[in-house]
């Protein structure tokens, strides 16, 4: 184990190098470019021993990794924004095909108009593709999430997307601890697929399915997505035990326990929100920040368990759920709490779109505005 200070994209590349990837295909796009460049560099120096393929588009990148995954390879790709949208068709193919592909999506605003900066609209537009989605708030989480993603993906045969904010995390430098290759090897043994495309095995992949079969496959994917919640919890514990390093929970709470006000968010702003909670507590409002690590499947039980009866939940999203007041996390939180007996007031707002800088004071203003709405 050693402590390093690198960019978020380098942290991701180092984890990809350690995870024993057999096949990677990518097409460059800002702010993902330095990640695929870094891995290409590892491939050029011989440190990356898998096959690295530079394809002509993101659609091809996802098609290539899905196909490689179907023959049994451990695969990786990365993209951002328009690139992710261009992959959309094959994202469904990868999840429907139960292919444990892992992808890093460096969050960036989608056009129009053109914008290069952090915004979650790209990831959340893929919410219903059947991919599992992890979000990161620092470089340690980016590094660790790569191993967690493969661990879970290969157990449930569902692809995983790791999202982290463009520039704010991808190009900033923050310290993180690497894990020894031997420990990773133990956590992540070689992939052992139940079936793979191979001339000696035979079989047809993704043949025509009639309604009954198709519906059975889809229900199975939905059930297994929900079941993956427990696999995430167990895999995080296993990683903690192997590395001896505490991992954030699926929803990590910081600040006051039994607070009156809870601040839920994901991505880089979830880190700054810890400071907002401290600031609110100084103002006499007992506050706690909740950092969401896993967006799909949504850890509803965790949220319900953390929130005390009668508390207020403020949800800030770096995206918009068009047609619904607020962002997707606001929607998820309200949906999760509906079945609970606890009486919790939930308010939400969309902030930081297109990379609007979310300083403590900007976030505090929005939180105070929503608290005023709650009072009214």
């Amino acid at each position, binding site marked *: 184990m050693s402590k390093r200070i690198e960019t978020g994209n380098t942290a991701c590349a180092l984890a990809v190098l350690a995870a024993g990837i057999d096949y990677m295909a990518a097409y460059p796009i800002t702010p993902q470019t330095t990640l695929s460049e870094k891995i290409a560099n590892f491939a050029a120096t011989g440190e990356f021993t898998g096959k690295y393929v530079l394809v002509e588009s993101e659609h091809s990148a996802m098609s290539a990794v899905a196909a490689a995954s*179907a023959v049994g390879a451990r695969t990786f790709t990365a993209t951002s924004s328009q690139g992710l949208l261009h992959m959309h068709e094959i994202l469904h193919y990868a999840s*429907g*095909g*139960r*292919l444990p592909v892992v992808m890093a999506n460096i969050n960036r605003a989608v056009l129009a108009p053109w914008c290069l900066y952090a915004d979650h609209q790209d990831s959340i537009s893929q919410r219903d593709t059947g991919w599992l989605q992890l979000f990161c708030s620092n470089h340690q989480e980016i590094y660790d999430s790569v191993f967690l993603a493969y661990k879970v993906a290969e*157990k449930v*045969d569902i692809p995983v997307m790791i999202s982290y904010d463009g520039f704010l995390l991808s190009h900033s430098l923050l310290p993180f601890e690497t894990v020894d290759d031997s420990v990773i090897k133990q956590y992540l*043994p070689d992939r*052992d*697929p*139940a*079936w793979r495309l191979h001339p000696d095995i*035979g*079989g*047809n*992949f*993704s*043949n025509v*399915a009639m309604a009954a079969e198709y519906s059975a*496959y889809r229900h*199975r994917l939905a059930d*297994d997505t929900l079941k993956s919640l427990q*696999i995430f919890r167990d895999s995080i514990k296993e990683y903690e035990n192997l590395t001896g390093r505490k991992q954030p929970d699926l929803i990590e709470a910081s600040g006051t326990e039994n607070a009156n006000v809870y601040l839920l968010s994901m991505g880089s702003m979830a880190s700054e929100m810890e400071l907002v909670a401290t600031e609110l507590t100084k103002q006499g409002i007992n506050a706690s920040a909740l950092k969401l690590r896993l967006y799909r499947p949504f850890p509803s039980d965790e949220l319900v368990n953390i929130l005390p009866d009668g508390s207020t939940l403020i949800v800030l999203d770096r995206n918009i759920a068009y047609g619904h007041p607020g962002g997707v996390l606001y929607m998820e939180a309200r949906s999760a709490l509906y079945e609970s007996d606890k009486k919790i007031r939930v308010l939400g707002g969309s902030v930081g779109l297109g990379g609007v800088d979310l300083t403590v004071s900007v976030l505090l203003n929005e939180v105070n505005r929503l608290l005023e709405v709650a009072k009214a």
Partner: protein
Amino acid sequence: MNTNEKKEILQPVSMPVEGVAGFTSAWRSQWPKLDSEKCNGCLLCWIFCPETLISREDRSIDLRYCKGCAVCARECPVNAIEMIREGEE
């Protein structure tokens, strides 16, 4: 899930099974008749048959699944295959 546990196949995978869609000979209005005297063994019929019914060894045709498409007769360079009306010899 431990490593000894046999993993269930979750992928949409199908294995080729003979006659999975029933005997497709019922679709036919004419059947291919091979004249082994004329046949030069070029195997073009074996390559082109969309139902892979023609044997590579003896060019016998599995008529249980032949849909009568006549691709083999069309492709044969020496006209060794003739299409005969169903019910006739």
